[in-house]
């Protein structure tokens, strides 16, 4: 059965396709995304407070490697599809990074299915935001020498700053730390805001993302079938990589499904912002159309259930 939050996404897409005047105020968009990042971080942090950090190190390194590897694989594929080097690398960076909302939908789906996952999964999200972006920028920049050398240089210091202290990593990590420091009891007074309403807020945010994604559908024609195919075929392939990584790490079935989802998901907050700064000559609309217009809906509607199946096949004993 489809999750109720997904219907809100479809309502948003529908509203856009019929050219409704429905618009969520931008301040609401920002508020909801701040809320979701904090809440996810807090939830993960509370769980972190219950276990030894050191045991998580292998997972953390594997997440980092996974995120970094994805653009290395995807960029050549995208070049074969006819994209320029920078466009290919920039698009690949979006898939190397992760979508926090896709993660939230997957967590909700698992909960509804009664499948439990590693409760500190939010930590993986925070860790996987950056490496794919870094890899994408490296791929766009390395070996690049153009007429105007200036535009080709990357200010890595500024970029690292913008990613690590950027809104999404900062709020996720901030939530993680607060949750870990205060634990379940210490965060109880704020639970009525950050826990119970989570799924309802997610529904509202998906309504908004549906409006945005619906608006990108019109752009599809511009970029042709190859982009559509890429954005539909890539997620399950990446998910397989994520699930296998999870298997190697000895994760639970639920954890494998989450890691598969993270690998399959494409960033639409941190990555577009970073690419605009570091690789401005890349076609931003192209990446966002693929990530938010196709891959995101695919993942939340079909992908997440599929990745849970995948995890179950790979991990039949559990």
């Amino acid at each position, binding site marked *: 059965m489809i999750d109720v939050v997904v219907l809100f996404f479809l309502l948003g897409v529908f509203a856009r396709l019929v050219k409704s005047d429905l618009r969520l105020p931008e301040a609401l968009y920002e508020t909801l995304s701040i809320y979701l990042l904090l809440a996810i971080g807090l939830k993960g942090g509370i769980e972190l407070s219950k276990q030894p950090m050191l045991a998580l190190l292998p997972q953390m390194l594997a997440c980092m490697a996974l995120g970094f590897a994805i653009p290395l694989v995807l960029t050549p594929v995208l070049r074969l599809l006819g994209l320029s080097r920078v466009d290919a690398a920039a698009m690949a960076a979006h898939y190397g990074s992760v979508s926090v909302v896709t993660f939230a939908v997957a967590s909700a789906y698992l909960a509804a299915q009664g499948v439990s996952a590693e409760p500190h999964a939010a930590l993986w999200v925070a860790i996987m935001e950056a490496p794919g972006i870094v890899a994408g920028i490296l791929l766009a920049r390395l070996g690049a020498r153009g007429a105007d050398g200036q535009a080709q240089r990357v200010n890595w210091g500024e970029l690292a700053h913008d990613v690590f202290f950027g809104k999404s990593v900062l709020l996720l990590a901030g939530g993680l730390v607060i949750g870990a420091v205060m634990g379940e009891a210490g965060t109880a007074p704020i639970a009525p805001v950050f826990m119970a309403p989570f799924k309802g807020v997610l529904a509202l945010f998906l309504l908004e993302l549906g409006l945005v994604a619906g608006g990108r559908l019109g752009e599809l024609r511009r970029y042709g079938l190859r982009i559509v195919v890429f954005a539909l075929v890539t997620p399950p392939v990446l998910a397989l990589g994520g699930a296998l990584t999870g298997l190697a790490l000895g994760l639970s079935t639920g954890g494998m499904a989450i890691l598969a989802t993270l690998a399959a998901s494409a960033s639409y907050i941190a990555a*577009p912002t970073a690419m605009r700064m570091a690789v*401005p000559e890349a076609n931003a609309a192209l990446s966002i159309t693929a990530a938010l217009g196709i891959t995101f809906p695919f993942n939340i509607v079909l992908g997440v259930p599929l990745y849970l199946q995948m995890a179950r096949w790979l991990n039949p004993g559990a």
Partner: protein
Amino acid sequence: MDKHARTLLVIIAEAALEKRLVADSQRLGAQGYTVHDVRGGSRLSVRESLWEADRSIEMKVIASPEVADAIARHVMGSYAPHYGLTLYFADVDVIRPEKF
């Protein structure tokens, strides 16, 4: 009331450029700036300000013609090739010439 001629430079651009545009114009001699959020479009694209990557800003700088030109030249060279961006100049009069 004495009035003094100055140039108003208006830059409409992707919101991602705000921090840089402010820093660049100060470096090039502007003594102040004013910014607000806008939405808009051109034959190239529509930017509705629905969400982050879709936001645009309008920045105003009042300065001497030379400073305005220097900022415009820098902006055209550095950002216009890769960013959605429009700029224009207008003649304005100010009262406290030392401020601009």
